[in-house]
């Protein structure tokens, strides 16, 4: 038996799943091969660790919680609500979105009707002049600046 084949049989050897013929061949190989023997020992150690590992009991109250869960699962209204809840939630979301869109539409229309009439081209141009400097008092910073730079309105 070759090492590659022997290593594939280690797990089944531990579980006593090999035939008697396979077991004899495997045992003979293990006797002769130190590397496979080491691997067998390490795998056996793993099984010993599993055997020593803690078996945990269900926590206190677990059975009570399970039975309460089963009772809740049996109630017909719960099953119906479980089935229909996603549909109802989705319908509410759609209705809410529609309301928001309608409110947005009407409030937008209200803004449009209440807004002042658009400026004419001449009115628009009149906003570009520099009359704003005229209102600056002479003792203010703006007035001092105008005085220093000697800016003249073209008006």
């Amino acid at each position, binding site marked *: 038996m070759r090492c590659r084949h022997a*290593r*594939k049989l*280690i*797990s*089944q050897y*531990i*579980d006593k*799943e090999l035939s008697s013929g396979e077991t004899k061949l495997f045992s003979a190989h293990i006797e002769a091969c130190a590397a496979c023997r080491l*691997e067998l020992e*390490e*795998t056996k150690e*793993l*099984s010993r*660790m*599993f*055997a*020593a*590992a*803690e*078996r*945990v*009991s*269900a*926590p*206190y109250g*677990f*059975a009570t*919680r*399970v*039975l309460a*869960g*089963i009772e809740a*699962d049996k109630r017909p209204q719960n099953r119906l609500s479980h089935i229909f809840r996603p549909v109802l939630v989705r319908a509410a979301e759609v209705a809410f979105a529609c309301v928001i869109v309608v409110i947005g539409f009407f409030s937008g229309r209200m803004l449009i009707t209440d807004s002042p009439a658009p400026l004419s081209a001449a009115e628009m141009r009149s906003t570009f002049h520099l009359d704003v400097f005229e209102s600056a008092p002479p003792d203010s910073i703006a007035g001092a600046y105008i005085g220093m730079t000697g800016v003249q309105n073209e008006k």
Partner: protein
Amino acid sequence: MDDIEIIRNFKHGEADAFNDIVLKYQDRIFNLCLYMLRDTHDAQDAAQDCFIKACRALHDFSPDASLYTWLYRIAVNTCLDYRRKRIQSRMDSHSMAEDMPSHMPSPEKLYESREISEVVRTAMQKLPEKLRAAIVLREIEGLSYEEIAEIMDVSTGTVKSRISRSREELRKILVRKL
């Protein structure tokens, strides 16, 4: 009371019949879920889901089959679903001490076995799900290859291969670690 009698009582509408099943199998199912999922709270949720699914389906259960392999199959599939759905990012912050087992071994034994089981459980998280399920059923639950094949719905050849690969992977992980 044996399983066949419990199932018969359940099918005849005895209200408490399922309680007997929960009480009889809760430790084994919870333990299986804990080794599969590692997190105590996830294991509780998965074990509870397993029993609820079993209760829903028990009317269709054939008495020819074994109840515990059937329950194990539900539990393994539930755990596989849990792992697929949840990215296990949160740490195991809920210590085992929070949910004290009902049958306590001696403190020394408990400490030693907890340390070992923690090492084993941590190593097992690195295994693919199906390999983990096979090794837990074999090493923790002590089931035969045939029973595992029935639970996992695969051939015994596949079970042999999965258990062998699991041991090989775990041996490499633990040799590096220890």
